[in-house]
C-alpha cells in the first residue's frame, strides 16, 4: 500500500491521459471541459506529490514495487522535487494557455491527452533508475511533444517544426540507445547505481567502453537541451510551435532532461565525469557565445526568447561542470536555477501567448511599441520577467545566477564564471531592449483595447509575484517559503541521491 502512495502522482497523470483519450471522441467534451479535467488530474498529482516531498528535513529514497519493477523506478526527495516542478509547469501552462487553446480552432481534446502523456513521460524520466526505462520515458515525452507541436495542422510552419523535431529528435534518441548498449557492454547492467558500483571495479569494467557510452548519452542530453553544437533545431522548432507548447518545452522539458542526466552523472559517472570537463568548457563557451549572438540578431520576440533559452542552457551547463568534490553547490544550483528559469520563461512565453491570442498579433519587437500605454499591467509583468531572465537583483533570476556563479568559482571554474558574466552582460541588451520599446515609445494603435479576461492574467501576476518573492523573500514571514527554503530544498534533494 505504501508503495502505491509513492507512485500516486504518476498514476494520476497517467490515468488522466488515458481517460481524456477515451472521452475525446464525444462531441460534448469541449476544450474548456478538457482543460479543466486536465487541471483536476494534475492537481491531484500535485497534492499527492507534495505528500511525497514533504518529509521535513529527512531525505529518503525508495524503490516502489521492487519485486515487479526491480529498481527501475525510484522515488526519492530528488525525484519528487523535480516532479513538483514538472507538474507545476504543466498546471501553469494549461492555466495560461487555456485562452489560446479556445481561440485557436484546431485544438481538440486529444491535445490534452497528449499533454498529460508528455507530463507522464517527463515524470517517469525523473523517476527512472534504469537506462532503458529512461529511454522509454524520454520517448513518451518526446513523441507526445512532436504531435503537440504540429497540432495546428493548417499552419505549415507547425508541420515543418514538428517534422524537423521528429527526425532530429529520433536521431538523438538513437545515440542514447547506442550509449546504453555500450554501458551495458562495459558493466553488464543498465541500473543506475549498479553502473557506478561496477565502475569502481576497474579490473572487471572496460572503462573505455563506459566512457564511449557516457559520451553517446551526453550527446543526446546536449541535443535535447539545445547546447552547442546541437542547437540549430531549437530556434525553428521552438518558434514553429504554438506559444504555450513553446513555453512548456523551454521550461518544463528542460527540467525533466536535467533531472535524469544529473542523476546519471552524479550517481554513476562520478569517477569518469572529469573526462568530459575539458570538452564541456568549450561547449559552454560556444553555447553562450552562439546563443547570445542569435538572441541579439532576432527581430521576433519569440525567437529572441528561444535563442536566449540557449544562453540559459549555457548557464546550466556551467553548473553542470562545477559538480565536483570541490564544489558541493554545483548540483543544487542547477536545481535552483531550473526553478528560476522555469518561472521566468513560463511567465514570458505565457504572457505573449495570452496577448497574441485575442489582441492583434504581436510578434516582433516593434509590435510592442508603446505597449505600456495600451496594457500597463501586462507591460509591468513582462518587464519583471525580462529582469528576472537578465538576472537583475530583486528577482529570482539573480539568486539563481548568484548560486551558479558561486558554485563555479567554488569548483575552481572562475573562467567559466567570467564567461557567464559576460553573457549575462550581453543579455542585458536584448532583454532591456524590450522594456525600452514598451515604455519609451508611443504606440500607433490606442483604440478599443479589449479588457483582460480569463484566469491567465491572475496566473501571470502570481508568477510575477513568485519571481519577486524568490528574489527578496526571506523567512521573516512565518510558514511561507522564501529563498532560503528553496535553496535548502534543492540541497536536500541533491543529498537524497546518495541515500540507499
Amino acid at each position: 500500500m505504501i508503495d502505491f502512495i509513492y507512485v500516486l502522482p504518476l498514476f494520476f497523470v497517467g490515468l488522466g491521459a488515458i481517460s481524456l483519450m477515451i472521452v475525446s471522441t464525444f462531441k460534448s467534451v469541449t476544450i474548456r471541459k478538457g482543460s479543466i479535467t486536465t487541471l483536476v488530474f494534475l492537481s491531484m498529482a500535485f497534492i499527492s506529490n507534495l505528500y511525497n516531498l514533504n518529509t521535513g528535513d529527512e531525505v529518503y529514497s525508495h524503490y516502489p514495487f521492487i519485486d515487479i519493477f526491480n529498481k527501475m523506478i525510484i522515488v526519492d526527495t530528488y525525484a519528487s522535487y523535480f516532479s513538483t516542478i514538472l507538474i507545476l509547469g504543466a498546471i501553469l501552462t494549461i492555466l495560461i494557455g487555456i485562452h489560446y487553446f479556445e481561440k485557436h480552432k484546431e485544438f481538440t481534446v486529444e491535445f490534452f491527452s497528449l499533454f498529460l502523456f508528455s507530463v507522464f513521460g517527463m515524470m517517469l524520466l525523473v523517476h527512472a533508475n534504469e537506462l532503458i526505462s529512461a529511454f522509454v520515458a524520454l520517448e513518451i515525452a518526446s513523441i507526445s511533444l512532436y504531435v503537440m507541436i504540429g497540432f495546428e495542422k493548417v499552419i505549415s510552419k507547425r508541420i515543418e517544426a514538428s517534422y524537423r523535431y521528429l527526425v532530429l529528435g529520433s536521431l538523438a534518441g538513437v545515440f542514447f540507445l547506442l550509449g546504453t548498449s555500450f554501458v551495458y557492454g562495459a558493466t553488464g547492467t543498465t541500473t543506475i547505481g549498479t553502473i557506478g558500483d561496477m565502475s569502481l571495479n576497474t579490473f572487471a569494467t572496460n572503462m573505455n567502453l563506459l566512457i564511449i557510452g557516457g559520451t553517446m548519452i551526453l550527446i543526446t542530453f546536449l541535443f535535447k537541451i539545445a547546447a552547442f553544437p546541437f542547437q540549430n533545431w531549437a530556434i525553428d522548432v521552438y518558434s514553429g510551435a504554438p506559444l504555450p507548447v513553446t513555453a512548456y518545452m523551454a521550461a518544463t522539458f528542460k527540467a525533466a532532461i536535467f533531472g535524469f542526466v544529473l542523476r546519471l552523472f552524479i550517481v554513476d559517472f562520478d569517477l569518469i565525469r572529469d573526462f568530459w570537463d575539458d570538452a564541456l568548457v568549450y561547449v559552454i563557451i560556444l553555447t553562450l557565445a552562439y546563443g547570445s549572438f542569435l538572441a541579439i540578431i532576432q527581430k521576433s520576440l519569440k525567437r529572441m526568447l528561444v535563442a536566449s533559452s540557449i544562453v540559459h542552457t549555457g548557464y546550466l551547463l556551467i553548473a553542470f561542470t562545477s559538480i565536483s568534490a570541490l564544489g558541493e553547490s554545483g548540483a543544487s544550483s542547477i536545481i535552483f536555477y531550473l526553478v528560476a528559469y522555469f518561472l521566468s520563461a513560463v511567465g514570458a512565453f505565457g504572457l505573449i501567448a495570452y496577448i497574441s491570442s485575442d489582441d492583434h498579433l504581436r510578434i516582433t519587437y516593434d509590435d510592442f511599441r508603446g505597449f505600456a500605454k495600451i496594457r500597463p499591467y501586462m507591460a509591468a509583468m513582462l518587464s519583471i520577467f525580462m529582469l528576472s531572465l537578465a538576472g537583475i537583483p530583486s528577482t529570482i533570476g539573480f539568486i539563481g545566477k548568484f548560486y551558479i556563479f558561486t558554485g563555479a568559482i567554488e569548483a575552481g571554474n572562475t573562467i567559466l564564471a567570467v564567461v557567464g558574466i559576460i553573457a549575462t552582460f550581453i543579455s542585458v541588451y536584448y532583454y532591456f531592449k524590450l522594456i525600452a520599446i514598451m515604455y519609451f515609445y508611443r504606440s500607433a494603435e490606442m483604440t478599443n483595447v479589449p479588457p483582460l479576461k480569463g484566469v491567465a492574467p491572475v496566473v501571470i501576476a502570481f508568477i510575477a509575484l513568485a519571481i519577486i518573492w524568490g528574489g527578496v523573500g526571506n523567512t521573516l514571514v512565518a510558514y511561507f517559503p522564501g529563498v532560503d527554503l528553496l535553496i535548502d530544498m534543492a540541497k536536500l534533494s541533491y543529498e537524497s541521491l546518495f541515500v540507499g
Partner: protein
Amino acid sequence: MDFGILSIIIFLPMFVAFTTLILPFGAKGTRNAAFLTSIVIFALVSSVYYNFELTGFLQFREHYTWISSYGINYSLGIDGFSLIILMLIATLIPSAYLWLWEGRTKGYWISMLLIQTGITGTLFSQDLILFYFFWEAMLLPVFMIIGMFGTGNRVFSTIKVTVFTIMGSLFMLISILYLGVSFFNEYGFWSFSLNDIVQINNLTRTEEIWLFFGFMIAFAIKIPLFPFHTWLLQTYSNSPTGGVFLLSSIMAKLGVYGIVRFVMPIFPELYKEFAPIFVWIGIFGLIYFGIAAMMQVNIKKMFAYSSASHLGFIVTGIFSLNVFGMTGAAFLIIAHAMATGGLFLLVGKMEYDLGIKAIPALGGIAKKAPIFTVFFGIMLLCIVGLPGTNGFVSEFLIILGAFGFSPTAGIVSAFTVLIAASFMLWMFQRAILSDSGNDVSKMTDLNKKEILGMLPLAFLIIAMGIYPDWFFYKIEPTIQHYLLDILQIRN
C-alpha cells in the same frame, strides 16, 4: 519584527511609491506624497545626525538573516562618511522636489522615490551582496526616468548608461563571489558580510589585484573616472532635470563612497600601493575634463564635464592617504553635490523656459532674472572655489593632501584648479551677464518655491565655507579610523 530607523529611511520612499502606484493618485497627489516623504526622511535623518556619536565605528546597526545557507544578511550601519552623504541626500532631495514641482507626471515622481530607496540602501549596506543588490536595483528607476522623460536621443542614452553600468557591476559581482568563496575556503562557513570579508588572508597577490580591479571598474564607471567616462556626455545632456540632478550630485558620489567603504578595507595594501596611480588619474581627469568642458557650447554638457572634472579631484583626495586629502574629499563631495546639483536645476529651468542650452544663444539673463543670477553665481563660485564657499575649503584641503602625498601632485593640482575657474567664469559672463542681443524674453525669474528650494543649498555652501568646523567634527573620527586602523598609516 521591528524595523530600525535606517530601514525606515530606506524603504519609506519605496512604500510610498508603490502605494501611490496602486491607489488612484494623480500626478499632483503623487508629488505631494513624495515631497512629504522627503520631509519626513529629512526629519529622520536629522535625528540620526544628532544622535550620531563621535567615533569612527559603525552605528545604528541592523542585522537580520536573509539567505542563511550562504551567510547573506540584511545588515545595515553607518559611519561618519556615510553620515555626511546621507545628510546630503536628505537635504538635496526636498530642494529638488520643490524645483520639479510643476508639470511632472506620476511616473516621474514614482521613479524619483524609487531612486531614493536605491541610493540610501546602497549607502547603508554592510553586506556585499546586499550592497550589490541595491547598487543594481538603483539602476532600474534611472533607466526608466531617462528613457521616459529624457530629451534628444533618450532611448539610446538610457540603454547606453545602463549597459555600461551593468558591465561594471557584473565585474564587481564576480569579485564579490570570489571573495565569498575564498572566505568559505578559509573559515569553513559562508559569509558576505564586510566585517568577515576583510579577514580573508588566503588570497595570492595576483588574485587580489584582479579582485581589486573588479571592484574599481564598477566604481570608476559610476564616478566616472577617465577612461570610463564615455557614457557621461550623452546621458547628462539627455536626462530630464531630476535624473541628471540625482546622477551628478548623488549617484556619482556613491562610486567614491564604494571605494572608501569596500575597496579600502578589503584591499588596504593594494589601496596604498596603487594610490599614486589613482591620484594621478584623478589629477589627469581634472585637467582632461576641465579642458573638455571649456570646449563645450552646450551648457549642460559643460556642466557634465565640469562635474567629472571635480569627481576626479575627489578621487585624488581619497587616495592621497592623509587626513587633509580625505577630509577634503568628503567635503568636496558635499560642496560639489550642492553646487552642481543646484546648477543643473537652474540650467534645467533655463532650458525649460527658453528651450535652448547653447551658450552663444543665451546672454542677458541677469537683467531678466536677477534672483536666478544670484543663485547661479553662488553655485558657480562654489565650483570655482572662491574663499568663503565650501568649495574653497575642500579644494584647499585636497591640494594640501596632494602636497602631503607628493609635492609634484600638489603643485599640479593647485594650478589645474584654475581651469575650472576659467571656463566657469567665461561661461557665466557669456551666458548670463553680458547682453548679447539674443531674445531671452521668455526667461522668468525664480518663484517662491524655487527660492525656497535653493536657499538651503546656498546657505550651506556659505555656512560650510565660513565655519567648516561645525561639519568636520562629525566625520573626523571616521577619517582617523580609516587612516590609523584600516590603512595603518601614521604620520
